[in-house]
């Protein structure tokens, strides 16, 4: 187990190296010039050329890459071309909103989707099952911004129960922090509820036909215990996988939701950085997301062993 974990952690290094090279090259091969953007519309070619030199963009690509890697090894992720701030501080600003939104969304999604999926499997073929499956299809199909607009229209504009937009940092009050996350979390959770509920239903349904479930029922266990202790736990591996993927997606940026509800998270930071060709910021964010994906996969692997002791590494 521990050697497996060590191997997985070490495997991160080549992954990050590949990511670094690909992102570095892709950014520089993508059309667009950060210097031209920064200099403004009335800047001359001469102004832009000077700025390119100042930003180090006139150096040969291998030299630029060498500087980038060398700085990275010293823990320096660079400075935003635009804001002249360390990229790491800008990422730090965006982490709290992103993690908060991810936490609320995934909690809500799990609380709703797992019971729904389990019930749908238990009541397989009934109106409840069909309703859950119908909701799943709708949840997958309706874009998150449509759900967001509808929630804003009814709950904010018409009823005035929630603010239209904005994020409040947790240090400014936990109540306000939670209050402002309700609508975006609900909007964003719909697709994950659909996904997790469907996966839970399929997985539990499969398990419910197993011999050990029949045995559990035969020895007189109550249905709730059969479902929760025997069926759900044994069906949990694929559900946990989906939840893990959902967390990774949520952390690596949910641009539309952040945009509609004005949440200053990593998704918008990434979008702005890509649109502005802010190379240092994009590079740092993609590296961060890669690490997040690897870590989440690792955590899921560990959870597998807890849920199913037969799994050994």
């Amino acid at each position, binding site marked *: 187990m521990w050697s497996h974990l060590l191997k997985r952690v070490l495997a991160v290094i080549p992954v990050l190296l590949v990511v670094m090279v690909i992102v570095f090259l892709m950014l520089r091969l993508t059309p*667009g010039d950060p210097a031209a953007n920064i200099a403004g519309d*009335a800047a*001359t070619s*001469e102004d832009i050329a000077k700025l390119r030199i100042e930003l180090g963009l006139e150096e040969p690509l291998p030299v630029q890459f060498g500087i980038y890697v060398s700085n990275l090894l010293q823990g320096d992720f660079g400075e935003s071309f635009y804001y002249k701030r360390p990229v790491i501080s800008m990422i730090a*600003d965006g982490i709290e909103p992103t993690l908060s939104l991810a936490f609320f969304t995934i909690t809500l999604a799990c609380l709703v989707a797992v019971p729904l999926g389990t019930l749908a499997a238990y009541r397989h073929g009934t109106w409840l099952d069909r309703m859950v499956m119908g909701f799943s299809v709708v949840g997958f199909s309706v874009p998150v911004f449509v759900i967001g607009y509808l929630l804003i*229209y009814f709950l904010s504009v018409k009823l005035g*129960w*929630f603010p239209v*937009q904005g994020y409040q940092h947790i240090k400014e009050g936990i109540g306000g922090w939670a209050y402002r996350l309700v609508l975006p979390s609900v909007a964003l959770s719909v697709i994950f509820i659909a996904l997790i509920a469907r996966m839970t239903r399929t997985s539990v349904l499969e398990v419910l036909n197993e011999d050990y479930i029949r045995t559990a029922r035969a020895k007189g266990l109550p249905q709730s215990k059969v479902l929760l202790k025997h069926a759900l736990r044994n069906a949990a591996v694929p559900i946990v996988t989906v939840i893990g993927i959902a967390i990774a997606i949520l952390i690596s940026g949910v641009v539309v939701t952040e945009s509609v509800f004005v949440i200053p998270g990593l998704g918008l930071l990434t979008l702005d950085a890509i649109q*502005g060709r802010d190379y240092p910021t994009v590079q740092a964010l993609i590296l961060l997301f890669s690490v997040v994906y690897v870590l989440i996969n690792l955590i899921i692997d560990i959870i597998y062993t807890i849920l199913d002791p037969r799994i050994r590494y």
Partner: protein
Amino acid sequence: MKVTISKRTLRAGAIIGALLGGLLTTGIGHAEKVLRVNMHSDLKIVDPIWTTAYMSRNYGYMVYDTLFAMNTKGEVLPQMVDTYNVSEDGLTYDFTLRDGLLFHDDQPVTSADVVASIGRWGAKDAMGQKMMSFVAEMTATDDKTFQFKLNEPTGLIIQALGKPSSNVPFIMPARIAATPPGEQITEYVGSGPYVFLKDEWKPGNKAEFAKFENYVPRDEPADGLAGGKNVYVDKVVWVVIRDQQTKMNALSKGEIDVIESPAHDLLPLMEQDPNIQLVDLNPFGNQYTFRFNQLHPPFDDPKVRQALLYAFDQEEFLLAAIGDEKYFKLCKAMFICGTPIASEMGFEDKLEGNLKKAKELIAESSYDGTPLILMHPTDLAVLEPLPPVAKDFMEKIGLKVDMQAMDWQTLVGRRNKKEAPADGGWNAFITSWNSVDNASPLTTPFLNAACDQALFGWPCDDKIQELRDEFAREPDAGKQLSIVENLQNRVSEAPTHVHLGQWYQPTAMGKNISGAPVSPVVAFWGYKKDE
């Protein structure tokens, strides 16, 4: 959609709102009067001399003050300057600063600060460089007076010092203005009506400005960028909201107070909203322009460029992009309708969709049938509809057009490429300028025809350059108009760009907001907010 709400629901909502919004929310103060504004973009660069970006210019007007400023009639009036005197031979300008000018660190504004600031600006800005070419010596005679000695008379000095748009000659402390113009400043101290709260600045989220309590406004009423800059709010917060629908909802619910540039397609909805008012604050509006790349065929041939002057119909472009006639104006005056130098000279028979004349010119030209690349930015609502209109006109007169879709940032990078269109260059694109940028032959960026020194498109025309110089030297307004007419005649023969009409961007604000200044550049003094 009509939604009926029962009293019971409203009561329930009120209770939930009180519980969630009131009891749970902590740390929100109500004492301060805060004006929350959604600007057209995020503030990225806080050195308005280093970049020409409009957001940096707008930031500059918050934090810095100017020696002179333009009013709503296009006149340039003293702002930080109290009095000034021009010698009879027009070679010596003596200026006296007005009393009470302080920087945000409570140090007095001195002539040394002015000289250093104008020096930095004059080294960077095109109009500043032109002005400095007339200045033999610039000296601080004492703490409150300074002098310009010229090498020849010009009408440019006051106009340049009152230049309203990027780069604006903002006055900074001498120690900050000593920063080379090619480097960004790192200290943000000005003497303007607001103090920049650097620690509250969250890129991509918000920028905050507090009222500068020690700012002494002029006694005259505010008029455009000139006059008394009285501040009636404690703080201005520029809030970044990208989604247009969310902006409108937030304004309607009073979560923000002002939207600088609401989307035109949402204006009809805003007009019906009882909580929103639409106000036109910029008397000059904006001007669409079609830019040629003159380095490569076919636009290296003046006949092809002239053909487009005849072919294009301003109304078609403005209807496609803006739609509602109350938000645009057909205007053949190159330097903006309503300014003292507005004239249609040279364009009387053009810009009306004369396809017959345009076809004749194409037939006489050297155009060989090669498709030309028209760049099409698809991510900016105010520009996106225009290239298809241009393509239609161009194809109707026999040009082949390869309209290439791209995001604006890609276009901005590509337009600086001098390579042939087939090798990653370009032939044409359309953009929009704040009209005040195009209100003078000296500030109109696309009129610079100094070959390699010109903006992307790189027109090269000695006659245009001579006429711009002549305009700069001419102190008499009447004679300046005559020069403008000669210039427009020349441009109609050798076009540098095509002006496609003026459009207006109303500002949306809450009904509780008043006092917003009418100004060629967005400004935040005068605003009053009723709670």
